[in-house]
């Protein structure tokens, strides 16, 4: 089977940039990706673009053509909206387009402007990824939803706020050398435990920040890469997607995420690997507990076992299975619609040895990206592998 190649990647600084428009951020990321790929921009045939809250944050719907234009491309462009998994979903359709031979070069990416509307309005905008009638109108916030899952996890399997704090500490440490990260600052377990509570048992340092930023990647067919002698060594060898009931109360489990499991099973099967082949990964840690649920859903830990992984040092940059070497959503930042492609970018750079944390994965060949929407009513998983031509 023909596996699409990651030909080039680009992103903006993730952080608080309230004055930057979505289109300006995406232009920067998209042009950087095209430049990194070193291809003729005229060869790009389509844009797959992720964005979640554009209507609320910028009063801008129909964003995809605007973003293609911002990058100087005259191509059909479609926006993908799957809450925080928007650009993960965009990658998946881009992969299908390349695999089925309908296109040879596509641009995939996302952008999100969030801090311009302030914390209260951003909290409200994020909440609409939940069921408006039956969750949001009862006062559920996004941290609140993950707090419900965290408490259910603690009751089912044990675990503590200290365990969650270890995850925050790890991801902050990972982000230290990442110049694109929103938070390049080390924290301690005590810092995390002393931080204000947002939704008990989750505190400020259990939560990712509100972030402005954009990401883009040029994906090409295997044939195009060969014909144009492109220097690409990273292939997307597996893709999977899972779904679940929208509202938490309609789920069988509060402390497990079957959508992640379904997406992972499909992606592993697609790539012809098992979970044991994964050398390192980026998972959707919008909250610390989400990293735990992801690692268990991905089949890398048994239910109840991932809560202590960071504290035991297994998922740190020095551990056997480094998780979120970019800093994750937690420290790198989470410009919602851009996050899926941000994960792809981090993994590509790590596999290519041009990421500041690349030393941690020297000799590794298989990486995984896990992007989740809502309380994981949507999940996408992609397997990236270094290919030897």
């Amino acid at each position, binding site marked *: 089977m023909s596996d699409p190649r990651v030909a080039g990647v680009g992103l903006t600084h993730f952080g608080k940039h309230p004055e930057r428009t979505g289109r300006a951020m995406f232009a920067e990321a998209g042009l950087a990706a095209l430049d990194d790929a070193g291809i003729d921009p005229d060869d790009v045939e389509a844009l797959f673009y992720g964005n979640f809250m554009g209507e609320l944050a910028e009063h801008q719907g129909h964003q995809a053509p605007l973003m293609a234009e911002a990058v100087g491309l005259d191509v059909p462009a479609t926006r993908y909206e799957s809450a925080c998994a928007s650009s993960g979903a965009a990658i998946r359709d881009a992969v299908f387009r390349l695999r089925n031979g309908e296109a040879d070069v596509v641009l995939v990416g996302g952008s999100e402007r969030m801090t311009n509307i302030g914390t*209260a*309005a951003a*909290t*409200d905008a994020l*909440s609409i990824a939940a069921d408006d*009638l*039956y*969750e*949001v*109108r*009862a*006062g*559920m*916030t996004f*941290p*609140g939803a993950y*707090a*419900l*899952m965290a*408490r*259910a996890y603690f*009751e089912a399997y044990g675990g503590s706020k200290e365990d969650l704090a270890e995850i925050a500490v790890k991801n902050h440490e990972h982000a230290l050398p990442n110049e694109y990260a929103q938070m390049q600052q080390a924290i301690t377990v005590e810092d995390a435990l002393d931080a*204000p*509570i*947002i*939704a*008990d*048992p*989750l505190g400020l340092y259990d939560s990712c920040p509100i972030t402005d930023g954009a990401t883009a990647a040029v994906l090409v067919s295997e044939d195009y890469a060969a014909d144009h002698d492109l220097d690409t060594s990273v292939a997307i060898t597996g893709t999977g997607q899972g779904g679940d*009931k929208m*509202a*938490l*109360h*309609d789920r069988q489990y*509060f402390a497990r995420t079957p959508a992640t499991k379904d997406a992972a099973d499909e992606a592993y099967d697609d790539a012809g690997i098992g979970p044991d082949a994964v050398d390192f990964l980026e998972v959707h840690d919008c909250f610390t507990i989400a990293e735990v649920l992801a690692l268990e859903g991905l089949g890398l830990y048994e239910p109840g076992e991932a809560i202590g992984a960071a504290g035991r040092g297994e998922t740190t940059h020095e551990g056997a299975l480094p998780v979120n070497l970019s800093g994750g959503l937690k420290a790198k930042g989470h410009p919602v619609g851009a996050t899926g492609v941000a994960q792809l970018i981090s993994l590509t750079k790590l596999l290519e040895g041009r990421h500041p944390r690349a030393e941690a994965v020297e000799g590794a060949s298989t990486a995984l990206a896990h992007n989740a929407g809502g309380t994981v009513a949507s999940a996408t998983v992609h397997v990236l592998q270094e290919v030897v031509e």
Partner: protein
Amino acid sequence: MSDEPRDDGFDDLLDAIADGEGFYVECANGHGSLPPRLSCPQCGSQELSEEPLPDSGEVATYTIVTVPTPQFDEDAPYVTAVVDFGPVSITGQVQGVDPEDVETGQVVGIDVGESVTRDERLIVFEPR
């Protein structure tokens, strides 16, 4: 708010709960869900009926929200909980008890209350 169109199903359920006649949607295979439904979210069955909601449920999980959305600015801190009524589970706010005294497994009844911030209707639970 009276000029706003109703949300069929949702507002019907809240009216019913307020009248002490809460219900849920049950399919031919016994799966419960909340209205409006034309098919069962668990199995796709289109044979649906409205059944009386059990009088009380148990708190399955809960959180004390201290950073709310603007709609609940003056309500915070408040307790959001998922309550298991058996055939169906429902999300709402636990009231009539100190937030610190809420616990999983607690038996609660269901009612309709109003938010402090915007006087908007919401599902509330109170300990039995």
